[in-house]
């Protein structure tokens, strides 16, 4: 082959190669929008990872996305050298959320750093997100006083020092959402890190059980800390259910007695007479 042709072919081949490479990277790997939160629920620490991506102005959850999770370990305090220690992995569900449970011994009192990374994803670009937090404790209980029920909670750091002026939400879990309990939307902890919420209204529950949630919501230093409480002073409302009663809108097995007896009596009376008349026809036939 002539030299020029060779060079031409090479150039074409080169472009094809690059062209197809571009294809791979621009079409299939999408940038994901990540969010990592520290969530401590009833004393159990975890990382809450959410991933979504944007396409045509609509957000879609990134499902089935695998994250590798690392804990950042300080090797040298002076030089602030850190090492990422692999502690596990998590995959997002159909809502693009993943919950990774941490061990209590993985949490220090302050300066925890965890990193989640997208590695080796065929759909999403490699990315990482980190979360830094200090540990805190939340303990809540229900006090039954003379003038009603109180929900009390105390927020302390991991060394039992009270955390004051932190905002706690107190809510009651209902079928489809959380209902505000007490006067205010949120309550500030006092110098002792405590709050006390009076429950003045009647709270209803068929089983009597009330599921309360006391939450420090997305705090910059401590993450999200949730404590669940079960109270048993829920009032059961009288059932309005007529399913077992005899009504005009019940199924045939529960017909009101009047509707059952009167038509049947009338029908039996009339048909009995008609049967006798048929017997009469028979008698006419039989007479000699």
């Amino acid at each position: 082959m002539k030299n020029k042709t060779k060079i031409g072919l090479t150039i074409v081949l080169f472009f094809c190669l690059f062209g197809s490479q571009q294809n791979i990277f621009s079409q299939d790997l999408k940038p994901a929008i990540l969010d990592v939160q520290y969530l401590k629920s009833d004393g159990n620490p975890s990382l809450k990872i959410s991933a979504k991506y944007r396409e045509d102005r609509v957000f879609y959850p990134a499902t089935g996305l695998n994250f590798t999770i690392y804990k950042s370990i300080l090797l040298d305090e002076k030089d602030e050298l850190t090492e990422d220690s692999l502690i596990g992995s998590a995959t997002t569900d159909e809502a693009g959320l993943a919950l990774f449970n941490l061990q209590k011994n993985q949490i220090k009192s302050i300066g925890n750093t965890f990193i989640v990374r997208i590695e080796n994803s065929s759909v999403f670009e490699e990315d990482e997100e980190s979360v830094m937090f200090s540990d805190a404790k939340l303990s809540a209980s229900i006090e039954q006083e003379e003038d009603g029920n109180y929900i009390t909670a105390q927020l302390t750091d991991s060394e039992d020092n009270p955390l004051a002026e932190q905002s706690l939400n107190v809510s009651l879990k209902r079928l489809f959402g959380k209902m505000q309990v007490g006067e205010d939307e949120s309550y500030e902890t006092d110098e002792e890190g405590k709050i006390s919420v009076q429950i003045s209204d009647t709270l209803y529950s068929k089983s009597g059980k009330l599921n309360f949630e006391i939450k420090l919501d997305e705090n910059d230093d401590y993450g999200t800390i949730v404590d669940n409480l079960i109270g048993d002073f829920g009032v059961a409302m009288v059932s309005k259910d007529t399913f077992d009663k005899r009504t005009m809108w019940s199924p045939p097995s529960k017909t009101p007695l009047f509707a059952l007896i009167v038509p049947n009596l009338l029908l039996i009376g009339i048909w009995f007479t008609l049967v006798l008349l048929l017997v009469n026809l028979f008698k006419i036939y039989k007479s000699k």
Partner: protein
Amino acid sequence: MKDSNNQEQRREFIRKGFKFGLVATAGGVLLTKYLSTSASASESEEMVELMTTEGDLVKVPKSELQEHHNASAYNPREGFADKKFVMVVDLAKCKNARKCQEACNKGHYITGENAWLKIYKMQESKETSPYWMPTQCQHCDKPPCVKVCPVDATFKRRDGIVLIDNERCIGCRFCMAACPYSVRVFNWEEPKQEEQASAEPYTPDFCGKPSVKGTVDKCDFCPHQTIKGEMPFCVKACPNDVFAFGDMYEDAVTNGSGTTFKLSELLKERGAHRLMESLGTEPSVYYLPPVDRTDDFEVGLENYTPYESVKKDTEL
């Protein structure tokens, strides 16, 4: 001469090697691309629209969905014991956006000419103010439709929901004549639903899945959603938080944004009423009057289509 020959041979070898290398890399790259295309979930897969707990509308590949349906846990004719579903419709917020109707139509595969949830342009008299009123089955506690059904095809459950058994209905339409709220629709011909509607065995607690020719359909208060812990399609779809739904025995209703209210307080403070209360049907839907409206009534006229309540595929 030998040297130049060797040089030539070396060059030739390098050239060939280079070419081979290029081809190999190109081939390898192309092969990887082909493989990854077939493995990943691409744009061509069907997406299903869902709403997250934060209220965002998201699309999820259908293959990722898992049915949480626990069909054996309860009897569709009896429903949930210890629950009584109620709905609150805030007429002060309705702007006739019609997202509720679209979500209901889509979720229940409604393809006829009459939607189950309709937004009426109401005006009591010439001097009083017009307003938009979304109306669906009221799931009355003294249902006139259930009273007149001759074959027990429509029935009232413990949880207050009134359902229809499309496998028993004989199509006499007496229930439709008896209902004062005009919420029932009839399948006058074979419904033109997509295959998904007939994908699973029929159960009365998912009306429209599938619809049956010659029988009656209506709003079912979405028990197929509530059994999963989710709210009805209309409640979630409304961009203006018009609907709130909940369990009366918890004295709580939650709107589309997730805000939960104490039902008794809401009804008392906002002066709630029910439709046609004097007929004695005892509906399960409460209406909050159009007072302190968020928008003028005229805003809703943009979407007003008096002769259409179900959008056909070509328009979507």
